[in-house]
């Protein structure tokens, strides 16, 4: 009797904890793509993403290859032209988008689950994914648009700073280049290069499929299988080169006729599998990752009114993603603001957080955990990350524990070992003080 009651309690606890994080179903398609599915029956809709390890980190010599390859897929497929493809989706209210960053290249669709919408939308998605035509007229148009995009960057101090930041942070590593490429590389792109890129990287073994929505497991399995059926198995992309640490500080100033100076500062940070992930994440949350209550915001904005936005964040990636600090302030204050950021960082590395700051950070992160998973689109975002970076399926279930386990000493130790305030890339883009 006692035992039975005990097991009943256990069952209740398990049910509760399963509710706290979405249940992820995971399998592989017959040609090798990894699939991740979360049933969300409440709304009659579904989000589907197919993600390839085919971001700009795979560009090789011609940066912009990955982005333009990805953009070309919906320009013509299985004999359908761009107008027809977009109409096939939009006529049934489906939303299709493609995008490509450094690590990931994505194709995403949101559709109603009613058959009148989902069936034709899936068919078009499948065409785009597996039978792209790479029409020459579209290639020329998109190439021109990329060049216009590069021109637009030149009138944005933030974009100029970002390009210089990555370039100086990563040197010879593929992360140094911008996904949008540069004028020379974009002009040098051709259809043959894009097709070769597609054939190498848009393959099942290099893909994950994410489904979140009002489907049952059987439906999800059938959809994933059909969607990728015509993709060759192919090979997983090779391991990315290691990021080499910065050996010295680099300070770069770029003139721009803006009233503010945009400051970016940082160094290579952490990967998605980093053993220091939680210590550095919690530490940075206190330092500059918690918006208006962070130490940086307090020093730069609250106390001194120097900037509207000031932040620091780790962007964990396949290889070491950047640890980045940033703000914008009127030109005359740029050096003052930079000093405040540096002093705040130095103090934090020296002293670590206070006990009260750590408690507040943990309360913020764990007390708002449910907010991270309160919509299908957020759940899809998390399982994309879990799937793409091969994180454990119980990542979300253990997230709070991992946060709560972090101590002041761990943060101090991780910061002193990993973050070197004397070896930062610092970019200042702006004009003369008025």
């Amino acid at each position, binding site marked *: 009797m006692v035992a039975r009651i005990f097991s009943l309690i256990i069952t209740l606890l398990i049910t509760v904890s399963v509710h706290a994080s979405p249940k992820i179903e995971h399998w592989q398609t017959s040609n090798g793509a990894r699939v991740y599915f979360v049933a969300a029956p409440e709304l009659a809709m579904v989000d589907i993403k197919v993600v390839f390890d085919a971001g700009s980190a795979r560009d090789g010599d011609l940066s912009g290859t990955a982005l333009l390859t990805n953009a070309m897929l919906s320009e013509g497929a299985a004999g359908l032209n761009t107008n027809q493809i*977009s109409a096939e989706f939009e006529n049934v209210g489906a939303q299709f988008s493609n995008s490509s960053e450094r690590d990931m290249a994505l194709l995403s669709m949101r559709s109603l689950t009613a058959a009148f919408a989902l069936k034709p939308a899936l068919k078009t998605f499948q065409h785009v994914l597996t039978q792209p035509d790479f029409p020459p007229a579209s290639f020329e148009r998109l190439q021109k648009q990329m060049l216009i995009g590069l021109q637009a960057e030149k009138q944005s101090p933030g974009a100029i700073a970002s390009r210089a930041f990555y370039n100086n942070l990563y040197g010879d590593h593929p992360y140094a280049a911008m996904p949008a490429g540069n004028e020379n590389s974009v002009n040098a792109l051709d259809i043959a290069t894009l097709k070769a890129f597609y054939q190498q990287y848009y393959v099942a073994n290099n893909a994950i499929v994410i489904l979140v929505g009002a489907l049952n497991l059987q439906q999800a399995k059938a959809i994933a299988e059909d969607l990728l059926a015509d993709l060759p198995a192919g090979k997983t992309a090779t391991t990315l080169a290691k990021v080499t640490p910065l050996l010295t500080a680099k300070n770069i100033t770029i003139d721009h*006729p803006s*009233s503010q100076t945009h400051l970016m500062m940082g160094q290579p940070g952490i990967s998605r599998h980093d053993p220091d992930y939680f210590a550095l994440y919690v530490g940075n949350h206190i330092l500059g990752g918690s918006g*208006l209550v962070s130490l940086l915001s307090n020093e730069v904005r609250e106390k001194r*009114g120097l900037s509207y936005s000031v932040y620091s964040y780790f962007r964990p990636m396949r290889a070491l993603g950047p640890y980045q600090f940033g703000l914008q302030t*009127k030109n005359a204050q740029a050096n003052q603001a930079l000093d405040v950021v540096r002093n705040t960082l130095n103090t934090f590395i020296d002293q670590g957080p206070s006990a009260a700051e750590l408690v*507040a950070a943990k309360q913020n992160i764990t007390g*708002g*955990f449910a907010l991270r998973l309160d919509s299908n689109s957020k759940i899809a975002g998390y399982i994309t990350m879990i799937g793409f970076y091969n994180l454990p399926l119980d990542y979300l279930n253990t997230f709070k524990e991992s946060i709560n386990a972090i101590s002041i000493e761990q943060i101090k130790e991780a910061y002193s070992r990993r973050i070197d305030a004397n070896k930062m890339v610092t970019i200042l883009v702006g004009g003369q003080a008025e």
Partner: protein
Amino acid sequence: MQMLKKIKLSCWLLVTIPVIAIANVSEYQLDNGLKLIIKEDHRAPVVVSQVWYKVGSSYEHNGTTGISHQLEHMMFKGTENLGPNEFSQIVAANGGRENAFTGRDYTAYFQTLEKDRLEVSFRLEAERMRKLVIDNDELLKEREVVAEERRMRTEDSPQALVREAFNSAAFVNSPYHHPVIGWMSDINNYEADDLRQWYQKWYAPNNATLVIVGDVEPEAVLALAKKYFGPLKPEVTAILKPQIEIEQRGKRTVEVKAPAELPYMMMGWKVPVVATIDPKSSWEPYALEMLAGILDGGDSARFSRNLVRGEEIAASVGAGYSLFSRLADVFIVVGTPVKGKSIADLQKAIVTQISQLKTELVNQQELDRIRAQVVANAVYERDTVFYQAMQIGMLETVGLDWRLSDDYVEHIQAVTAEQVQAVANKYFIDQGLTVAELIPMPLDGKKPVMSAGVNHGR
């Protein structure tokens, strides 16, 4: 007016029972006039709490433009019982996300929390609804923060400078003339008393709507709202002057020279909105909305199909219409020509697209596409509690009924091809048109990139 207020107040005493409870929405009004709208959404154990005030940049006067936005910033800087930034610290320690936003027609504050923390939001929002303290030193610092915000958003963005110039040309006496963030000279000269008076004038329960969406029980939320907001005293809020925009008597053009690489232009035609339309023509805003969808409702819409592809004149082009503005507004088209084409080429192509809407009925397939999109979007929008609360709060605050967001699909479905043609002919006329152009100046400050109107595409 004083009399009318009193009568209203006595009416409020009667109505803490639900005024309405259709679908999963409950609506209440507290004795002090605070409106409370609760929408249940039990998909996740979270709740969003938003307080919407009927005040924004369209309530402001020359000399203190942007003061609603500055006041929004000051709402985080301390009250009788909270120190500067303490509000944010308490929300953060409770796992919450919070911020605020100011528009032309509203100022809104929000927290998203796990559902059992809603009380935190109510306690803090009730405190700052009536007990704000504007400290002069805090204001001086925060004025600088807002000035930096303006530099970032506007001064250093050539397209934002064009938008400002456009609005100030299109609207003469309508308060939509000035930017939400305010002119720099106004920002630099706010005084503590300006802020105190603005706060006194507009921040009161009878000028606010509290919108709650999430995993909550309406009765419990009502009880909590009564506990924290119930004791607050109502205010005799100011009466807004109508400020009806004067009749436009000819096309207006404005040029903006700024350091830039790419040309950019805006065209805007004066149009009515739901809040201002004569009831006999209540379909017109929806026909304009449909028209916006025909031009720019996706990649298969006419602008993408004909101007980005097709003729390949536009690098980018878009159409926009806010049918739920408080005051009469403009239907806007913005764009950048491709290399080798000029702003004039792009404008000509846009005008040709508009002319086509005047002379030819849009086809059934296009209407069906927009209808399918609005039906689907009505489902997609329910994926976020925040957006659902936004819709309710925004409609209530501009003086419309939140149920309009439910009726929206129906209204769009009812629009006919003839109605689209009718609004195209009625409103897309030169007497209602304002055009603003960016003339790119060299980024290195040395020589002009191009001369005006001659060689925009390079």
